[in-house]
């Protein structure tokens, strides 16, 4: 009995190993096959094609990996954005000058800058109490 016939018998009985199935597929890929086997060509061609289209097993994880990578980098980007926003917010607050007396803000920090201090324009609402208190503090600590 021809070895291919033997393999075909085993194949249809579901007893072939993967290697034996590979042998069959290789055989049916060839152009020179025995006439009696030609009826099986479409079937093996179909299975071979199916097998190749099912391969994306390796493609799927790649997509998943890409997705995971996107999520990871997205999270990192969001964290950076959050940190930078927090920093800018805090930095903006800590870069302001202001005075509160009894819980009331009596100045706009944007008005306090060196230009104002060094200009001769006098403001009408000087807060003597605040400046006097600061002088006292500095006096007492710098004695």
């Amino acid at each position: 009995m021809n070895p291919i016939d033997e393999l075909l018998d085993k194949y249809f009985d579901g007893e072939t190993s993967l290697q034996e199935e590979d042998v069959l597929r290789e055989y049916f890929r060839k152009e020179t096959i025995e006439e009696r086997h030609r009826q099986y060509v479409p079937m093996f061609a179909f299975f071979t094609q199916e097998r190749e289209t099912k391969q994306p097993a390796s493609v799927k994880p790649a997509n998943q990996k890409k997705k995971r990578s996107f999520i990871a980098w997205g999270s990192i980007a969001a964290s950076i954005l959050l940190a930078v926003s927090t920093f800018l917010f805090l930095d903006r607050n800590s870069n302001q000058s202001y005075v509160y007396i009894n819980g009331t803000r009596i100045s706009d920090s944007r008005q306090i800058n060196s230009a104002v201090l060094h200009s001769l324009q006098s403001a009408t609402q000087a807060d003597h109490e605040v400046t006097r208190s600061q002088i006292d503090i500095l006096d007492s600590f710098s004695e």
Partner: protein
Amino acid sequence: MKNKTIYMLLFLLSVSMHAFSQNHLRIKEVFDVYGKQEGAIFVQLSSDVLSQGSNITFYKSLILDKNSSREQTITTALKQDLKNCSVISEIKKNGILESGTYLVDKNPSQKLNEYILYKNRDGKITLVYLSGNFPPNQLSNELKKLKNLFIYINNKRLKI
């Protein structure tokens, strides 16, 4: 990927550390809590005011009418912070801290020195936090310069 994540976390940590500088001190809460209350004078001066003629880069002062609750809260916060401070000068009466000037310990990468000044006298509690690029032996001089700035503001009747 792992390494990149670690670098990113380190970056975020350094950004956060910078953003939260000064926030590591407990007295920061004192300014936050009492700064805008009745009976408080709260002054914050930043580089916009201080940049000309002062090496002090940040200045925050709080003057409060004294009461036992405030005193306890402030001294508790101060004691916590003083664990990481060097004493420049200190006055105690009957074992109770009356006034003190302290240098906050810093890590080698930190450029600015941070100082805490405290006074509890005559029914008033005064707390000052300031930072600047100068050593403790120049603190007194820097405070005098800042005082002159306030005198100037006072004399010119400039609005703060």
